[in-house]
Every structure is written in C-alpha cells, then in structure tokens.
C-alpha cells in the first residue's frame, strides 16, 4: 500500500535536534582521486611562482616516486573499486579490514547468546557447586562423544519428535542430536496436587501444561537421575560426560527408562484431566 500523502506523513520525515550541532563544518572526505594532480607540491609551487614559461615536466624522475606515493596508491585502489562498480566511500568498506557486520547482529555474536539455548540450559543443569567451567567442558565432551558415536538405531515404538532429522545425520550435528533427545523425551505436562479439595486427606491430581524450558529441565533431570545410578566404568574427567552421552544415545534409541517416566506422567495426566472441571477449581486455574 502506498504511503498516504498528508501533513502527518510529512511530519514523520522531520527530525528534531535537541542539541546544537557541535561540528559546524563536516570534514571533507579524502578524495584522493581528485587531489592527484596536487600531490607533487614542488611542481605546483614552482608553477605558481614562475608564470612566464612553465618548465618541462620532469616525467622521467618524478613518475616512479609519484605512482608509489600513498596518495596515488589509494587513488588507484579507489579507481579500481569504482571500475568494479563498488562505491569506494562506502563506510562498510572504507577503513575496515573485514567490513562492518550486518545488523542486527546474528544471535551467536551476542555475548549472552553465544550458545544454543538448549546447550546453555543443559550445561547449567550439569553444573555442580557452581563450577560452570567444568560443566562447559563436560558439555563439550558430551557433544564430542555424540559426534564420534555411530548413527543411532531408532526404535519405532519410541518415536522421536516429528521433523527430526534422519539418524544418519545426527552425529554430524551433535547439538541437534542432544536437542532431539531432550525434546523427544520431555513431558508435556506435570501433575499438580491440590490438597483439601478432593476430601479425605487425598490430593486432587490436576494436569498442568509446561513451558519449553520447564519441559527440557525435567527431561534432563530424569536423564541425570539415571546417570547417577549407572556404574562408573573408568576414572578421570571423561567418565561423567561419557555416561551422560551414553544415556542420551539410549534415549534416542528408545532403550532408556526415561521414556517410561514420561509415559507414566502422561497416563496420570490423561486420567486426571477430568479434574480440571472440578467445581472448586473453576476460575482458579
């Protein structure tokens, strides 16, 4: 739709400065291509003083010095750029070795969004005693374990998230591998117990939906519970990450007991969904 032409659209184009402009005269751009003739100062001054007969231009001596002077080099490069159809005065190119980044910055360039959100959350769940650096190393080892393990053999009775990449692709993208495992086994709901409603001292089970981060957190806690019960096979810093990674592979292959936990929660939630209509809860949920 074309913009409407009225007073308000004209006002929108107005810009108001609250402070006076300090830099009254903007610095002219260094247009070296235009200043080329003036680069050799000795000849110009000589010309201005002697008006009668301009001396023979000293082509043989001055030319090599002139062509290799920095002004000339810059001018030549600017001309070349202009010949290629690039604006030599583009601020994205001029004065920057690698150019300016495209805005808005892509997410990984931001200090606080360096990692994939799933990786970031799982890393913090792996952390013990506030040792984030150790948790990060563990996470790197988990991802390397996933990368070097053979492609998983899927179990059709434990389907992964719809739209998950084929198993042969998973080892190449360990972050995706981890994400698929966690998201697939994450429960959709949790069971909230309301006491004093059902009567007889029983609590009333009511299913409640979970947000994405909550779902991931619960799934990872289940996985870590299984890992804690596993026997350690070796010693050294690689042991814990390899146990976690083995469990993640077990989840994708459908061997993990975590699937049963998820199924149990969903079963209870399905059975208890009638409780959502309990007369004492109406208007409270």
């Amino acid at each position, binding site marked *: 739709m074309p913009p409407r032409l009225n007073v308000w659209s004209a006002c929108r184009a107005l810009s108001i400065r609250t402070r006076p402009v300090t830099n009254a005269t903007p610095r002219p751009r260094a247009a070296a291509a235009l200043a080329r003739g003036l680069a050799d100062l000795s000849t110009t001054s000589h010309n201005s003083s002697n008006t009668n007969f301009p001396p023979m231009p000293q082509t043989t001596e001055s030319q090599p010095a002139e062509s290799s002077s920095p002004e000339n080099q810059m001018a030549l490069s600017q001309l070349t750029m202009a010949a290629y159809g690039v604006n030599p005065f583009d601020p994205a190119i001029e004065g920057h070795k690698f150019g300016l980044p495209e805005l808005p910055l892509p997410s990984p360039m931001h200090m606080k969004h360096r990692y994939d959100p799933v*990786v970031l959350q799982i890393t913090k769940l792996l952390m013990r005693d506030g040792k984030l650096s150790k948790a990060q190393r563990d996470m*790197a080892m988990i991802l*390397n374990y996933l990368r070097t393990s053979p492609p998983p053999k899927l179990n059709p009775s434990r389907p992964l998230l719809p739209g998950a990449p084929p198993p042969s692709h998973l080892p190449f993208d360990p972050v995706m591998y981890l994400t698929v495992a966690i998201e697939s086994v994450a429960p959709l709901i949790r069971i909230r117990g309301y006491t004093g409603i059902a009567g007889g001292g029983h609590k009333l089970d009511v299913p409640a939906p979970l947000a994405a981060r909550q779902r991931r957190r619960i799934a990872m806690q289940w996985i870590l519970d299984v890992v804690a019960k596993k*026997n350690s*096979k*070796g*010693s*050294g810093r690689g042991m814990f990450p390899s146990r976690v990674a083995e469990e993640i592979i077990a989840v994708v292959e459908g061997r993990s007991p975590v699937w049963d936990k998820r199924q149990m929660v969903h079963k209870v939630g399905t059975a208890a969904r009638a409780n959502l209509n309990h007369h004492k809860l109406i208007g409270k949920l």
Partner: protein
Amino acid sequence: MSAPNCLRGCLVQRPAGGAAATLLRHSTVMPATAAHFSTSTPLHGNMMKPQKPGPKSKVLLVAKQWKKGKVADRGGKSPLPGERKAFRKRILLSNNNALPVEGLTYIGPGDLLDHKNVGKVMSIPDAAVDQLRTAEVFKPTQTWSIFRKPSMLVRSETVDLLNRMHTALGKEKALRLVIAGDRITGKSMLLLQAITHAYLNDYIVIHIPEAQELSIGATEYAPVPHSDPVQFMQPNYVLKLIQAIRKANEKLLAKMTTIYSHPDLPQNIPVSSPLLALANSAKEPESAWIVFRALFQELTVKGHGRPPILFSLDGLAHIMKMSEYRTAAFEPIHSHDLALVRLFTDCLSGAVSLPNGGAVLAAMTRGNAPRVPSLDLALSRRAAEQAGRHKNQLPQRPAFAKDYDDRVEAVLQTVELLQLQGVSKPEARSLMEYWAASGVLRSLIDEATVSEKWTLAGNGIVGEMERAALLTSRF
C-alpha cells in the same frame, strides 16, 4: 602377607612383632644385590588378600575406622583392576562419522624434510600407525578420535627439526635436542612427527612415552648388581620397553646380527644370531635390564649395517629431580641414578655417543611437570646462547639459591633447544580447512574465521585452537 623383602610392607608390620620381625631380620641378612624394593605391587597384594585373623596392629584399626562410611551400592559388577585406567588411557584413532578428506596424502619417507610440505595436512601410513601405537606415542589428550584417520599438520618447525636430524645423520652424529614451549603448543606432537619420520626411514626407535612413570615410584626397582656408585634398574618397565622396541622395529632387528657374545645373558645367544633373538630372550623382568644393555650395546656398534637410533622421551622435567624411590638406607634416589634414566641422560648430554647417527630428543611437558629450577636455568642459558649472547651474559643462578642441581645442569650443557610457539596463519588455515573438510568444524573457513580462532588461541597455539574450534559446545 606382603613379600618378605618389601620395604613398605616391613615398615607397616613392624609393630606387629612375631613373624614380621623375623622376616625383617631375614631381609637385612640378604645381600643387597638380590633385594627388590617395591612400593606398588606388594601393597596392592595386601589389599587384595583377606587379612588373617591375628594380633591387630594400630594401622589396621585406623583402616577400619576409615571404612565406616557406607559406599553406595549401585548393583552390577564393578570394573576389574586396571579396567578404569584402561578406559581413561584408551586411544581411539578413527571416527567413522567423520568425512573422508579428499586429496589427503600419506607421508612418505622424505616428505617431512621437504619445505614444500609446510602447511599441509598429511596422513600417517597404516604401518607407521601400528608402530606408533606400539611405542605408545599417541596420547589420549590428542584429538585423534574425532577424525577419520590419523593425520597431522606439517609445521615449519617439523621440517626444521627433521632437517637438523638429517644433517646430523650425514655427519654420523646424534642430534641432541630439547623441545620446549608453552602448554599445548604441540611438543608431544612434534615428537610424534619425528618418530614417524624415524619409522619411515628405518631408524631404531626407543621411546619412553611418559617420563613420570620412571620417577614417581609406580614401578618396581632393584639395585643393578656390581654397580658403583649403585644404580637402580626398573625390571618390569624395561621388560615392557624391550617388548615395545621388539614389536615396533621387528623387521630391522631381524635383519641385523649380533657381533658380541653376551655371556651374562640368561639364554645363550651365539655370535651372529639375529638381534631379534636377543630381544626375544627378555622373558622375565629379572633379566630385562641385562638384555636391554646387551641390545643397546649391539645397536650402537659402529658400522655393521646398524641403522641410526632415535632415543626419545616425553616429560623431561620428571627425570630431572629426586625420584620417589628410596635406597635400602631410606635415602632418596636421584632420578639420574635410575639405570634407564641414566642411559637416556648420558645420551642427551653426549657422554654416550650414537656412532651411526640419529637423535636424542626430549620433550618438555607443562601440564603436570614439577618445577625444576636447574632445568629452567639450563634451558634459558641454551636459549640465550642460541640468541647469540656472549658467554658472560648468560643467565646465572641467583645467589643463595639452594634448590639447584649440578647434575641436571651438566646434562643440559650442550643440548640444542627448540622453542615451540603458535602456528602461522597459513598453517592455521590449512588445519582449519582440514577440520572443515572432515565435517567436524561446521563453519565457512575464510580469513575472518581463521583470524578469529588464531587470535583466540593466543596467536595460533594449536591446542588452544582445537579447544576453541573442536572441543567447544559452541557450534
């Protein structure tokens, strides 16, 4: 019950009296040449065997108190002895998920000498991989397990080092050199490249993969008979070393024949029998050191078609200090009084020459190394000499310093020093292109990426580049 001549076992059991006391007397009567001092195995035996009911000593009571805390039983069978360490130390050399890289060539015998190959990534031939594995040159901390097949970057330092080795070989001399450098700059990797070159060019390689195994008191030791001043051999370690040498250099050893008669060997090896038979005669730890001496004597004969020798060791600082071993009088033993270490340090200092040429290489380690002031001083003096400083301007010991060691400085009097630093940007780029072609690094490799990782890695320190690009959770 512990072995009768076990040092620690005797000390522990001294207050118990009775049988232990008689054993202690017995061990003091025994001649020193027959005594085997050990710390680890008999102790291990003690722990494995059920304790006999008898007079309880104080030590046992304390042990009982320690056991009070309940250990969580997770069910299943626990790993067998040695299995945990095997898991920690296992070396995987291939990853079938990684993409095969096109245009990757195998290293030939002369490839690492050629300056044209600087900045190329090349694969180790399969035969050499087996030899390197036998000699335990690969380390579990290196990132072999991520890639399809073992390949490595040829650095300018590699070509430089190997050309120096080659020049020394032409003069029938040994290059005596210490590889130093910051953490994860690739010191062990450079050693691996030198050893690969040696295997491809028919050197005999004697490699001590972890110097600390010799000096931290983890392997058995015994005095060498008739040695004055007394030296100590490490029979089990030397037996393992001989077996590794035999397996990795089998073809060469089969070709050569003995020229000395060795009357003190446990098995009769007549003159002009193959050296392989001599190496094979080491079957028991007791005779291992004698066989090793005989083998080394045969290998260092001048002429007779003997190949050059590469004698290398990783973790030099560990053998430049007092070891954890003790003499019968409970005096600490200097590492240089351990016979195998002495042989290496003699070769490194030039006291024992390798007449057929070769190299004596020692790599420093920075991860777990003890601080040895004499070693640091000696290396800084070598560095200053190589920088062309005058003899009077070399670094000196600080006045009143006590923890300096003359023996260490004497060993390093004339060695050469190779100081490793980061790789150059073209080398870094080639390495990163290899990572990307393997499907391991999922990013476009352009000048900006290379520059980013190179800068993050402290101006191209290879291990840091690996950390920044491969061992990260940021993809």
